[in-house]
């Protein structure tokens, strides 16, 4: 309960002011396509040079918290996930916004984010030493199986056909191998100079989600004004809060999955949202509503990606190992003030460490308040006419993907993938499994190669990958996931209502 003693620090005028700036700035940066939380935090580092250690970290902590949640805004309203963490949010969130329920989707996402986030930070406060061991438990073989588990989820994710889902996943896995391979440095599949650096996930993400949507808007043609008008339902905040708690299954699954997976260095943050989404769909009684604007989808995805924030810092704060790119940037923020994180951080610099953690706790709540405040306003985006919307999304996609690495190549990749994805979507493929393949490919490959090298030097590959409790548990889960997918495929061949909706919409003159 030591952290309670440092709550006062957060509320001094300067610190609280910085917390507000960090939160509001973070929401804006997070909502900007192309700006992942890592980029946003790195952008703020120069400002912390002039602040003292505590103040600098308050700013960074608040920004980290709110950029993750801010990503939901563009994911829901524009279908542009700002970072991999927000992919799952687009699936149902954007469908809700299209139905005029943008305000509801945003409110649900902010409330779920805050609950997940607070839980994650509490884990960080109370269970750090235990969690640190868990973070270290994942070696190459376990990360490999974890990635394979992700691959098995691919088939059933946002796709009405398991085969096409897997095929899209394979395309994503292949795309991830383009460029230099990370370990050997060999060049693979470089058929154009734009891809010589490999396919960067963020521009790919923007292209795969935003561009098909732009083209679909073109497909509706030049409509008369009357057909455009969409009533944006206002939605009482209290209702949203009640709904989040009523959907306690999605909330629990999201929060737990997010915090457990978020811990694992190098993997967690990117896939926590998707895994949580998939799990809560499998366990939901209203399974078939997922993907059509169902509130459980938004709640699970958003509670998971904010629950990840706290635990993702555990390896950094206790072992001095940054477990995610964002944690690496935060490490820089600590180092410039001469603070070395490690198991004695809380003894040597309790004021800095606890104030930082407390500011994330308060930051989650502030983020929720501001988010709820603007939700109703932001949801009006849905009323922007089609033509204007298409042009805005296209412009944002170009600027956003360029800003990641200042590279025209990324913009070309974004547009090429996006245009291809539009046609693929028309033939029953979907973007989410493709992106998941793109993310998981390097994790699976690098860990397989490292594991194989270690295995060759010490024991045998069979022993290294197939023995040990954690390996066996993961393999068991993989098998269960595959069996479940096959069973579901055989039992109920699902036909999406989403596609029918698109077809109907285009047919109306």
């Amino acid at each position, binding site marked *: 309960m030591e952290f309670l003693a440092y709550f006062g620090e957060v509320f001094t005028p300067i610190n609280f002011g910085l917390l507000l700036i960090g939160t509001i700035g973070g929401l804006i940066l997070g909502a900007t396509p192309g700006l992942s939380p890592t980029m946003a935090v790195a952008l703020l580092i120069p400002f912390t040079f002039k602040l003292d250690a505590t103040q600098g970290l308050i700013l960074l902590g608040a920004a980290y918290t709110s950029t993750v949640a801010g990503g939901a805004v563009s994911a829901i309203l524009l279908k542009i996930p700002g970072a991999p963490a927000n992919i799952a949010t687009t699936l149902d969130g954007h469908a809700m916004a299209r139905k005029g329920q943008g305000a509801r989707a945003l409110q649900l996402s902010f409330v779920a984010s805050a609950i997940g986030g607070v839980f994650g930070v509490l884990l960080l406060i109370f269970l750090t030493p235990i969690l640190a061991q868990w973070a270290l438990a994942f070696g190459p073989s376990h990360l490999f199986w974890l990635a394979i588990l992700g691959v098995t989820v691919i088939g059933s994710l946002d796709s009405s056909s398991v085969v096409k889902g897997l095929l899209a996943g394979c395309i994503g896995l292949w795309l991830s191998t383009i460029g230099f391979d990370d370990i050997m440095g060999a060049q693979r599949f470089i058929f154009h100079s734009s891809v010589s650096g490999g396919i960067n996930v963020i521009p790919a993400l923007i292209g795969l989600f935003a561009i098909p949507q732009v083209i679909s808007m073109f497909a509706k043609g030049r409509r008369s004004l009357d057909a455009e008008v969409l009533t944006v339902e206002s939605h009482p905040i209290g209702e949203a809060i009640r709904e989040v708690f009523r959907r306690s299954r999605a909330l629990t699954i999201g929060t737990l999955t997010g915090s457990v997976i978020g811990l694992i260095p190098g993997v967690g943050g990117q896939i926590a949202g998707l895994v949580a989404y998939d799990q809560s769909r499998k366990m939901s009684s209203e399974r078939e509503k997922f993907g059509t604007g169902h509130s459980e989808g938004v709640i699970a995805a958003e509670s998971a990606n904010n629950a990840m924030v706290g635990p993702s810092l555990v390896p950094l704060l206790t072992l001095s190992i940054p477990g995610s790119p964002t944690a*690496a940037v935060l490490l820089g923020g600590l180092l410039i003030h001469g603070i*070395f994180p490690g198991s004695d951080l809380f003894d040597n610099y309790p004021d800095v460490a606890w104030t930082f953690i407390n500011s994330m706790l308060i930051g989650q709540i502030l983020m929720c308040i501001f988010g709820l405040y603007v939700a109703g306003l932001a949801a009006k985006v849905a009323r922007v006419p089609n033509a204007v919307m298409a042009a805005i999304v296209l412009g944002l996609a170009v600027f956003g993907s360029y800003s990641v690495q200042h590279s025209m190549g990324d913009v070309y990749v974004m547009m090429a993938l996006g245009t291809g994805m539009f046609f693929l979507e028309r033939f029953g493929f979907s973007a989410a499994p493709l992106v998941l393949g793109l993310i998981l490919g390097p994790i699976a490959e690098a860990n397989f190669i490292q594991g194989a090298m270690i295995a060759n030097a010490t024991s045998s590959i069979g022993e290294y990958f197939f023995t040990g409790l954690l390996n066996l548990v993961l393999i068991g889960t993989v098998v269960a996931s595959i069996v479940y997918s096959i069973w579901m495929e055989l039992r109920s061949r699902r036909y999406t209502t989403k596609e029918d909706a698109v077809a109907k919409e285009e047919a109306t003159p």
Partner: protein
Amino acid sequence: MKTLIAAASIALMGLTGAATAQDAESYPERPVMLMVSYGAGGATDFQARIVTMTAGNEDALGVPIAIINKPGAGGRVGWNWFATQADADGYTLAAYNIPHFIAQSIEGGVEYSADSFEPIANWGADPAVFVVAADSEFDSMQDVVDYAKENPGGLTFSGAGLFVGHHIAALQLEKAAGVKLAYIPNNAGGAGAMKAVIAGEVLGGVNNLSDAYRAREAGNVKILGVFDLERNDFLPDVPTMQEQGFDIDNASVNFRGIMAPKGTPQPIIDKLAETVPAMFENARVKKQMEAGGSPMHVMTRDEVIEMWKAREKTLNELLSGL
């Protein structure tokens, strides 16, 4: 009409010609971009952000330097871009890592070599060190080599990738000790390699001195030796490899600095070569670098040119045996 076009084109040529002459005079008049070929938060990125933080001061460049990250494949992605696509106008600079990019160009498969770049100045020298987990049975390099002799090819140790400083150090160690080791390159860079050591996935590791120093402060690792000619100020108690009887020089020391693409106008290079070392010497920069545990080593353009040449020679010899 024809004369009009001719006049216009002459005027245009005059304009552009004047612009290049003026460029060096008034350079820099807008913010400068510095490409770092490693991810945000890595040691190179972190140090680059500190050493350029005073760029906007009047006595330095007078304009801010913005860091752009182009990570991938041990730096190859960024440097390939820099050698082939960057504008040589003085507004696009990059951070270099020696021996990384020279070793990669010797190994082949990339579109750059030491001749593709113009060094500006060096800011840091981060030697490689050998680390083992805090609870490891190894207490000196001799213990490590003895184990390797009993288990040929069975001593697993991690490093940040192939053909980077850590890999060079590993090759030197194999050669000097006359043993076969199992070097496991990590795809997550130095941080990933360090995690592998602390988590016990591998028996030891080569890592950056700055990161290892921090990990030791946190009580996670033991540092057994420095791959350099002299002991380091941060670790006065850790002996060099030579002191422990291994003939290993400083070829793996990770030098970091700033370079420009080939073809950048000479006046601009001269201006940068003059102002940048002074910028690195700034007292605030030094204080923050030391606070972060990053060893500084400022070198001028001429010294860097010498150093690159010397490195290229040693690395050619070392890697030709592969």
